[in-house]
């Protein structure tokens, strides 16, 4: 088990299409696997029915990808002799040799050959870490200042989570309301390309920051065994590193087929690959119900969306969209366990009482080959922490978040934050925060104009009003706990 042999690619979709190009061939544990040029190794393997990518260290339990965005490590394999490669962010190349690893085989695995590493010294006026909605908007807002800007992202493709959203966004004209997330990403990227002072570096992972000089080190992968080590000195830094999906503790939560909702979105919507045929989604907030709808668009049968709370936290219209499609939402339900031999084959859910204790006799078994978790996100603040930014645990914002001014400057002068890294909210507000942070970076460097100051004033005003709406008052409260006075 742990594999199914059919091709999982999607060829018909109401919103998306995939320009796949000419197929190429990679080898996986000795067998030949078809891949397409725009795919990552993990995507191509998943399309070929490979579900188990690695094994746990002690019990050797099979593990599959959880995040699909280079954060979780559960997709690590040996590629062309290089061990421990995150295959979910590695673009495929014809003839690549992929081998599954058992981390137990050797404690310190060594590459089959020398890695080629070239060191570069670089300087910019502004370095932005993360090319999602916040990072791209920040770059776009700061670009007219003429500052030399670098945007770094570990993914092979820019756009962050925007590229996975098939639905039109809420909000106003200022936040591109009415445009699908995937199209917003495309627009932002094409607008950015008109600015020759902005460099966009994909497959570039920030691996360190060294105070006091403030050197940021990033590794730009050019193939599996060739890296450019970028030593970056920037006048200003803007951290837009996004968030990490949370998991939930239950028996079988590590079975291949159990993944974050975002991982499922990546497979479905970025690569056009079905992560499963029948799925249980845990969490009926916006992410859960939106992913359920996207699953139906991808031809996947959603058996149930469950939530432990007595009311969905999702926008009513998003939840309503799936109910009229006969996708059930079971409130006050949770998962008892996921079961299967090597991969998910079924899941059992049950009802809970007001103290979240299971109610006897309410168990339901669902035949599913996918369990997707939409149980919240945690801001990715590791880099900010390393940079010395003051951090505080704020439940309303999803976890540890940095203190910031209304201009999105952290407690470290010249270090800005925007998007989910500053608190879990949504793409529309991430874009607005990015705009504010990008403009502020330019203004504080003396490169701003009156028009930019006015644009920033409007963006702050928009954000304040947005957070007056009932669903965001919590966010507003959270932000007030980490708001610091801006420097003069």
């Amino acid at each position: 088990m742990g594999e199914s042999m059919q091709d999982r690619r999607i060829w018909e979709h109401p919103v998306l299409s995939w320009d796949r190009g000419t197929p190429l061939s990679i080898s996986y544990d000795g067998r030949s696997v078809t891949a397409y040029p725009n795919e990552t190794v993990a995507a191509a393997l998943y399309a070929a029915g490979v579900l188990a990518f690695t094994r746990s260290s002690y019990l050797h339990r099979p593990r599959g990808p959880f995040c699909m965005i280079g954060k979780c490590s559960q997709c690590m394999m040996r590629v062309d002799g290089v061990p421990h490669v995150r295959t979910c962010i590695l673009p495929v190349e014809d003839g690549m040799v992929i081998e599954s690893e058992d981390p137990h085989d050797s404690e310190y695995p060594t590459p089959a050959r020398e890695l080629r590493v070239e060191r570069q010294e670089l300087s910019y006026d502004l370095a932005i870490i993360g090319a999602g909605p916040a990072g791209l908007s920040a770059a776009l807002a700061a670009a007219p200042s003429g500052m030399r800007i670098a945007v770094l992202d570990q993914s092979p493709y820019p756009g962050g989570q925007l590229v996975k959203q098939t639905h039109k966004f809420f909000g106003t004209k200022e936040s591109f309301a009415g445009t699908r997330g995937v199209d917003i990403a495309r627009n932002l990227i094409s607008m950015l390309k008109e600015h020759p002072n902005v460099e966009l570096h994909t497959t570039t992972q920030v691996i360190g920051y060294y105070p006091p000089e403030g050197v940021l080190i990033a590794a730009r992968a050019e193939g599996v065994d060739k890296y450019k080590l970028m030593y970056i000195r920037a006048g200003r830094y803007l951290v837009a590193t996004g968030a990490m999906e949370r998991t939930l503790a239950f028996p079988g939560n590590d079975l291949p087929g159990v993944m974050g909702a975002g991982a499922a979105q990546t497979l479905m919507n970025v690569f056009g690959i079905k992560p499963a045929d029948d799925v249980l989604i845990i969490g009926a907030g916006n992410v859960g119900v939106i992913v359920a709808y996207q699953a139906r668009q991808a031809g996947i049968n959603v058996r149930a969306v469950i939530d432990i709370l007595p009311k969905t936290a999702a926008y009513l219209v998003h939840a309503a969209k799936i109910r009229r499609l006969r996708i059930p939402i079971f409130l006050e339900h949770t998962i008892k366990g996921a079961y299967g031999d090597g991969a998910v084959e079924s899941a059992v859910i049950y009802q809970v009482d007001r103290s979240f204790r299971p109610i006897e006799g309410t168990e339901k078994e669902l035949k599913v080959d996918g369990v997707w978790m939409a149980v919240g996100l945690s801001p990715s603040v590791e880099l900010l922490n390393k940079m010395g930014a003051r951090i505080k645990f704020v439940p309303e914002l999803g976890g540890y978040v940095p203190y910031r001014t209304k201009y999105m400057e952290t407690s470290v002068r010249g270090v800005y934050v925007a998007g989910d890294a500053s608190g879990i909210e949504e793409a529309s507000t991430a874009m607005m925060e990015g705009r504010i942070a990008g403009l502020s970076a330019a203004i504080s460097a003396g490169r701003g104009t009156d028009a930019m100051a006015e644009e920033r004033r409007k963006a702050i005003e928009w954000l304040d009003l947005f957070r007056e709406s009932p669903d965001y008052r919590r966010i507003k409260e959270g932000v007030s706990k980490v708001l610091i006075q801006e420097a003069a």
Partner: protein
Amino acid sequence: MSEVEGTIGIEAGIVTLEDLRREGRLPPPEVLERGVALPIIDCLEDIPCTPCRDVCPTGAITMKTMINRPEINWDACTGCTLCAQACPGLAINIVNYHFGRRSLRRPGYEEYALVMLPYELTPIPKRGEVVRVFDRAGRQLGEAEVFSVMKSPKFGTVMVGVLVPQSIAFEVKGVEVKRRWPGRRGGAP
């Protein structure tokens, strides 16, 4: 009528006609008599979202501020359908209540309404095809003929127009093609 699987109620995403009536979202009889198409806006929460208001050419949809829910002025609405095509939440359908009697003029269809629904799934229904129609809870209300299929490049959302008896005109909220589900082997569920 089929049973609803899952939790019932607005807390679980199921809006009822009663909810809509309470919010003034169902057109009064004298408005229906005008014989134009009218939007039924299933947007009952204060959320920061404005495309329906922004796209309305006559100002029939208003909001106190961008974070409030839409309000409709029936007298100003011309039934242009733009709001239904623009709504990011696919929450607006268009009901032309007296379509059978006033416009269609097909014998036996005097008591039929034309209901246009935003649709972002595959396969796209074809004109003349018989599809299943569903209410807000996903209960099948019956089958209906597809009278029109429209997709404007500006909005990119397909509007599927179905002919249904007036008695269920305000209940219909979803359509499903009777052919197999997209990408699923072995026929409809």
